[in-house]
């Protein structure tokens, strides 16, 4: 019997399997293992991994840290020039505190991401090539430090891609990356 509405035969576990179905099992299994290996391996040899360090931080305390950082940074027409390798960004409804910022191409920065109120989405792309884009989630209560190296100069736009309230679509910021 081979009817999905009836009980199978007693020996259904030992019934022979079609040759092509067995081959497909092998192919599908190999593919599953292969893409697992690639993803895990990429964390070792790849340059694009959403991996950083997270610290628990009170949202108010994080806001103070961003303020201290802004104090230390140099203000220019295109935005803040960070005093060192650390860049602090604080998300709040409906603004990116700490942006715009001026960075050097080819220089590795530690980007600190945190929020003061609700969850936001940190979504970045260069102005002239929208399909180069990344998206990270930002929480109140967490400070996520992710190293980044922008290799090409240009303007990078930051929008919030998590619904954080009705004004959410107006939440826009900028990185200006200059020749290093």
């Amino acid at each position, binding site marked *: 019997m081979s009817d999905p509405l009836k009980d199978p035969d007693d020996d259904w576990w030992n019934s022979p399997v079609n040759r*092509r179905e067995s081959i497909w099992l092998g192919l599908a299994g190999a593919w599953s293992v292969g893409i697992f290996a690639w993803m895990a391996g990429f964390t070792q040899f790849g340059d694009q991994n959403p991996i950083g360090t997270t610290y628990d931080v009170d949202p108010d305390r994080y806001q103070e840290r961003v303020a201290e950082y802004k104090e230390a940074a140099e203000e220019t027409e295109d935005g803040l020039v960070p005093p060192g390798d650390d860049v602090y960004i604080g998300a709040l409804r409906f603004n990116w505190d700490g942006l715009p910022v001026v960075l050097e191409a080819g220089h590795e920065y530690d980007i600190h991401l945190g929020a003061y109120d609700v969850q936001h989405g940190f979504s970045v792309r260069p102005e002239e090539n929208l*399909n180069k884009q990344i998206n990270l989630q930002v929480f109140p*209560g967490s400070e996520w430090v992710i190293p980044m190296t*922008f290799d090409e100069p240009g303007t990078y736009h930051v929008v919030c891609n998590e619904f954080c309230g009705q004004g959410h679509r107006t939440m826009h910021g900028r990185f200006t990356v200059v020749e290093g």
Partner: protein
Amino acid sequence: MSAIASLFRNDYDSDGFRTCSVTGLDVHRSVENHVKLFGLTAVIALAFGGIFAFTVAMTRWEFIGFLDPGSYYTHLSLHAWNLLIFWMVFMEIAILYVGGPMVLGRTLPLRRLATAGWVIMALGAVGVNASILLTEAPNEAPLLTAYVPLPVSPWFYGTAIVFLLGTTIAALPFFATIWLETRGTRRTLPLVAFGAFITGIIAVEAILGGIAAFAYAFAWRIDLIASVDPGIYRQLYWIIGHGSQQINLLAMITVWYFLTHVVGGAVVVSEKISRTAFVFYLFFINLGAAHHLLVDPGVSAGWRIWNTSYAFYGAAFASMIHAFAIPAGIEAGRRRRGQGGGLFGWLTSAPWGNPVFAATVFSIILFGFLGGITGVVMGQMQVNMTWHNTFAAVGHFHATVVLGTTLAFMGLVFFVIKTMFRRDFVSETLAAAVPYAYAGAMSIVTLMMMYAGILYGVPRRTAEVVRNIPGSEFSFAAAIPIFMIFGLFAVVAIASGALFILVSVGSLLFGDRLPGGDDGGLLPEGGLHADGGQPIHAVELRGTFTLCLVFLAVFIAIYVLNWYLVTQLWAIGA
């Protein structure tokens, strides 16, 4: 009133049973009437949520720009809850009753509980809709996720919990059936009942997660606890947020096995392999939910890789098994009866004019190619950075739950209209057109969503960004051509959905009653059980094998393309 009462009337014998002229199953009145009750409620939710599909799509198509941002988020929440949750979950309870007592030829146990479950679910559904509609500042529309600490009405969390409790109660008669059936015997359940059983277990896991998540947020909203942790809420929330979609997936696959058999003459090519795939789902599929947390702070890389990759691929592997087993069932069933030779004769000679068959097969193909592949690809930790919260993610889940689940459930509704309501379609032509128009237009809509997200970086959950980001010189105007195609085909898709509702409701109200014994033109050529020919394992399955190789080739191409885009990015992370 009498028109509605007549929907619940059929010719039963003195014990309340009748024999279905299509499936040959012994159907009891108690089971059938509850299937109808839950099914009709689901269709009402589909019609209601479909209205908001129109307003939401016409807002995202900024050429029309239908709603202001405030109403947009309200409409988006109503669209999501009515279609992703109420339409699907009411259908799934109906599917549990079909897959349990109906397939097993039993009465429905605990009938009062089933009805009470329906009442509580309906109250919860009305409550969720009301809480969204009555949202007032400072509260925000919940969307589907209601991420804390965004202020969302406590009524929303409360009524969502009521709905989940109702669903649990409504599922109990199904579990009681399975328990009564298997206790003290060594009986193996039929495959469809087995699939329904695994679906039920996954549903319970998801519901427990949902109750935990919403209770946690509710307690915070009514000041029982002082603060909430967004990361913990997200972990709990996604147990149901994605888990509910896993219920859809399992219910859909169970429906695939059921409908390809009864309208396409499919057989089970290997009970062992199909059942093993369901067991894989049981162990692994809920871990797939972790892919929502791939770009969250505070989750270790090891956690992400384990859950979304190693464990999740247990489920992806299972889906690839069904991707072979189901078309192979059709191929084997038809070849054994000599219906169509060559490589694809079995497929080209299939009953494509039967909307139940067409809807089922389109669901299988489109779920696999558009929904399944993108799900695995975006579930890779690094690729996820490019998909997360973009319009592409919306494209992915429309491919899974609209092209996959909704299409399969549409086929099932048509099937139920003929076999349980015993009505002829008001128009066979219009009914036959529904799956073609809907699947065709929705495929283009989902592709455009994916392109807008991946190639243009358009975020999801925004009222407008393409023509205008207020207060900014920047916009996603490059994506305008994509949105033009999106908008036009969204109109066609929604019109096809409306046609589905019209044909279904029209047939129930005005369709001719089918005479007893009439199969309504649903049965495959040669009847349900055409025996003879070779044993199944020896039937040539080269058509299915070829299709699966094409599928794997497309999978590899999309995988490579997405990774290429990732490696083009600037250096990010450790």
